[in-house]
Structure formats: C-alpha cells, structure tokens
C-alpha cells in the first residue's frame, strides 16, 4: 500500500537531516508499529507522509497505491485515504465537532467525485460510530477539542478515523495521555477498523499499546532510519532491554 524508499528529510532553512535514508513497506491489510526513542524522527515521518509545511525532502521516494505521495497537497492525500491521528489534536474554537466532521467527510467525498452525505444519513453514521467509542452526543456539539481531556481528544481522533474510513492510517502516540480504560476503548475502535484493504502505522514509545493493537510487524527506528524489524516479540524485547542496543547503529 505504501512504499517508502531511502527517504531523506530535513527542516526548511536548516542543514542536517532528521530522516536519514528511511525505508519502509506497509502492504495492504497489515498493521505495522514503529518504536524508538525520543527525537529519532517518528513524528517527522508522520508529518512528511501527511504533507505538513516546513519540511524539505532531500532524497528518496514515497509511493502510495502506486502514486507519488510527496507531490500531493495535504487535502488530496486525505481524500485518497491517508489519515493521521495527531499526537496533539488541535483545538478549533467556534467550530462544533459535528460540523467539522461533516465538512471533512463531504470535502473528501466531493474530491473523490461522490455526492454529499445528507444530514440525516450523516447524523446516523456519526451517532453510531460515536456510541461505539463512548463519545457522548454532548461532546459532538462542543467546539472541536476545546476543553476536551487528553483521553477525549484521542477518542475524538479515532471517531474521525471511523467516520472518514481511511485506507492508510497513521496513529502518532495515540496512547499518550490515555488511562488504561480509555486505551482499551481506543484500541477497540482501531481494531474494529482493521481489514484486508486498510493498513495502519502505529507510532509509539511503549509496548503497552501493542498489547491491545497487535501489530503484524514491529520496526525499530533510531537515528532517522529503520534499524531493525521483526514480529510482535520484538516489542517485548525492546520493553525489556530498552533502545541502548540500537544507539549508534544508525551512524
């Protein structure tokens, strides 16, 4: 589904690179996890794949469903099924969550050449998905993320994913700020979306999330590249031994 080859990325206006030749291949239907210490470029990877400003690609390619991803505007990528669950979801004052969700869905549908979902159709869809994630109707009427707790914000991210039904979802530190009950609800929401045509990239520090979202492949990232890959057992090994063994491996 997505093939990243030898990707080299820096920050605009600065010398030096954050991603230093990263390669990664996530086939359709698989869930891959990326683990690694702070500052190794995990969030940079998420930002570059979704088209955030401020980064400069100095080498390598990203192919998504056979197309060059890096040439596309962020909204084009979204309409083609790329979704990012943000590490720090943004507060949008004055825009009710429901309004935003509907505008997003219809904007994506329009870009794909589909008709708008009618108001009643959308309402039913949003309510069903919200109930499954224990998101209260009251929360949908409030301005998006404004005054939400950390757990509420993450559940709102997963609700958006459930409504938008992306093909490739990146979950950036979705476990941060979650207590164990919220983590289970979020993981259930994510697992409900697993399927043969959908892939996911789960970025996390800790193995804990992977108890609930079982990955097919675990990658270790250090120094801006993937330094090791393996099955779920790799996450357990990292939890026990830490990242020390990989320090300097990328150099």
């Amino acid at each position, binding site marked *: 589904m997505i093939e990243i080859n030898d990707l080299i990325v820096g920050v605009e206006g600065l010398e030096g690179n954050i991603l230093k030749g990263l390669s990664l291949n996530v086939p359709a239907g698989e869930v891959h996890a990326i683990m690694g210490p702070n500052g190794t470029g995990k969030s940079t990877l998420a930002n570059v794949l979704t088209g955030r400003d401020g980064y400069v690609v100095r080498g390598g390619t990203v192919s998504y469903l056979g197309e060059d991803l890096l040439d596309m505007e962020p909204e084009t990528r979204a309409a083609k099924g790329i979704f990012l669950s943000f590490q720090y979801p943004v507060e949008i004052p*004055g825009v009710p969550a429901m309004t935003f969700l509907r505008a997003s869905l219809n904007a994506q549908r329009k870009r794909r050449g589909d008709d708008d979902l009618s108001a009643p159709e959308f309402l039913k869809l949003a309510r069903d998905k919200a109930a499954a994630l224990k998101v209260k109707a009251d929360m949908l009427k409030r301005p998006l993320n404004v005054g939400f707790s950390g757990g509420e914000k993450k559940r709102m991210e997963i609700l958006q994913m459930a409504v938008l039904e992306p093909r490739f979802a990146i979950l950036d530190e979705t476990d941060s700020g979650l207590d164990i009950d919220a983590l289970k609800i979020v993981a259930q929401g994510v697992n409900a979306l697993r399927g043969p045509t959908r892939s996911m990239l789960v970025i996390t520090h800790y193995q804990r999330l992977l108890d609930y979202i079982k990955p097919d492949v675990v990658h270790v990232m250090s120094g801006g590249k993937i330094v090791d890959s393996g099955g779920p057992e790799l996450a357990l090994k990292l939890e026990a031994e830490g990242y020390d063994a990989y320090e300097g491996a990328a150099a």
Partner: protein
Amino acid sequence: MSTTPQLPAIEALPHRRMEAWKWTDVRAALAKPIQSESASNTPLNTPDSAVVLSFVDGRLARPPQCPAGVTFSENKAAGPLNDQTMPSLAHAMAAQHYAMHITSAVDTPIVLRFTGQGYCTLAVTLDAKAAATIIEDHGLANGFANTALSFDLGETASLTRLIHQQSGTGAVHVVHADMTLAQAANVDQFSLSFGGRLVRLETQVKYSGVQAQARLNGAYLLDGDFHNDQTYYVDHAVEHCTTRQLVRGVVKDRANGVFQGKFYVARGGQHTDASMNHDALLLNAGAAVHAKPELEIYADDVACAHGNTSGALDDHALFYMRQRGLDEAQAKTLLIRAFLGAAFDDLHDEALRDMMMVPLMNWLERAL
C-alpha cells in the same frame, strides 16, 4: 445619477494631526480629486416585511409608507449641532434635514438605505416605551458621503440598530451616529463593515438616565487597499448603566482596519458595568490594524474591562483541517466564520442574524 456634492473647504475636514482622526485622514483623502472608478456595492437583502426608506444623494427618494407608530418629517432647518466636525459639516451643508418619530413598539423592521454622495441628516426619536428595529444599509460606489444620524431614546425605549456598510474603491464615506439613552433605555447595535477607499463608522453614546444599557458589537472584513474605521465613544454620565462591546475584524492584502473605543465614566457614573473587546485577524503580512482601546474613569465603584488582540490564523489548525480533507480556503472560511461569529452571537433574532451573515459569507467566498 449621482451628482457631485459640493465639497467643504479642505481646511474644514478632520486630518491625521487630530488625535481622533490620526489613522483616518479625511482631508488627505479628499485633497486629491476622487477618481471615478467602476465599482458596485451590493445592497443588503432585507426582510420582505420591512419598510424601506431610500435616501439618494442625501435626499429621500419618495415619500415613505411609514408603519403605525412612526411619523416622518422634513425640515429646512438643521437640527441641534454638536461639536463634532463631520456631523456639524453634514448639518451645515445638507439641503434638507429629516426626522423620524417613533411613538410605540413597532414590529416592522425599518430599513434606511443610503446610496449616492453628499450630506444627509436624520434625527430619530423614540418615545418612552417605544421600540424599533432599524436596519441601515450604507453604500457608496464612488465619491464623498457624510451622513449624520441621531437617536434619542426615551425611558425604557428599545432600539435594535443593524448597520451594513459596503463602499467602493473610490469612496470616502463617513457615517456618524449620536445616541442618547434615558432611564432604562436599551440599544442593541451590530455593525458589519467592508470599508472603501476611506470609511469611518462612528457611534457616540451618552447615558442620560440610570440603568440604561447598550451593546455595541461589530465586525469588519477588509481586503485590497480598503480602509475601515469603527470608532466608539460611550459617556457613562449617570449611575448603573451597562455597556457591552465585542468587535472582531479580518484584514487581508494591504487593507487597513482601525478600531477606536473609549469608555468615559464620569464622577457620577457609579456602578457602571462596562466591557470592551476588540480582536483582529491579519491574514497576511502587509495587512494592518490600528487599535486604541481607552478607559477614562472618574468614579470609584465601577466594573470596567477591556481587551484587545491581533494575530494570525493558527497554522496548526489549518494543517489539521487540511489533513481531514478540507482545502485551504474551506479551512480558512470555517476558522474565520467561527472567529467573527462570536460578534454575531448576541443577535438573537435568527432571521436578522442570517441576513447579516450573507454578505460575510459572500466576502469569504470572493476574498479567500
């Protein structure tokens, strides 16, 4: 056809060395000949039920069909003059002066549509317990217009005043309103302005009776080289009066926004409760906002607050919205509508709020 008004002697016009006009220099704007450029202004789509009084080049176009409780008159003599430059000029130069007298609670909205150039004066009086909704639509394609209004509210009288202003690239346009509120009178004002070459909307409120209250909200949206000035002065001369103000603006390109607000609390203005807020969004480098919020307080038991901010759209929010599939213009539209919406929230009449939202949405569609 618009006739060229007689311009006053240039020395008579306010200019930037006067403190109250330092950002809106009428003299400089009129010193050069006004170029007649093609421009159009879109009138406000007012409710079908409304009575429309149309003033063209300072004169009433045809005799009005006033609803019950409203009488209208024309006078050759000017009304009482104040010490303000522009309304004094309007009174001195206008050929005809108009007066409206509202004696009871009037349900039918009254639309005052001002088009064309020149000097226009209108004095509105609301008797005790009278109530009215007045919708002003100020449009000037090109040239110079100077409109002086006054609103005199009797005890417990109530006025909803909505102002829509949209002028052209060659328009130098000043609208001044003086309001006097007797005991327990109430004004709910909302002005929506889109500027012009040089546009100023000024509102001066004087409380003459206790427990009167005024809400003075507004929004402005400016692009190109447009200039808009919203200036307010509120004189809390007596006790227990309440003033609420929220003005929000969006400025794009090389446009210029001016907000001047002054709340004056006299020694006799004990228990005044007043708050003034102005927030501006600058959409690009080169757009400018000048703000001067002022409180001048001589009473010792009052609650007065003011806040003033300016900033840019939140890049994080824009990216977040684009990641969800909205394009940049849609994302900006949602954010700006939400930002300005706070100033519309106090318009509780849904139909009137929707009426005022239409030109805002048209601007966003055109300018973003």
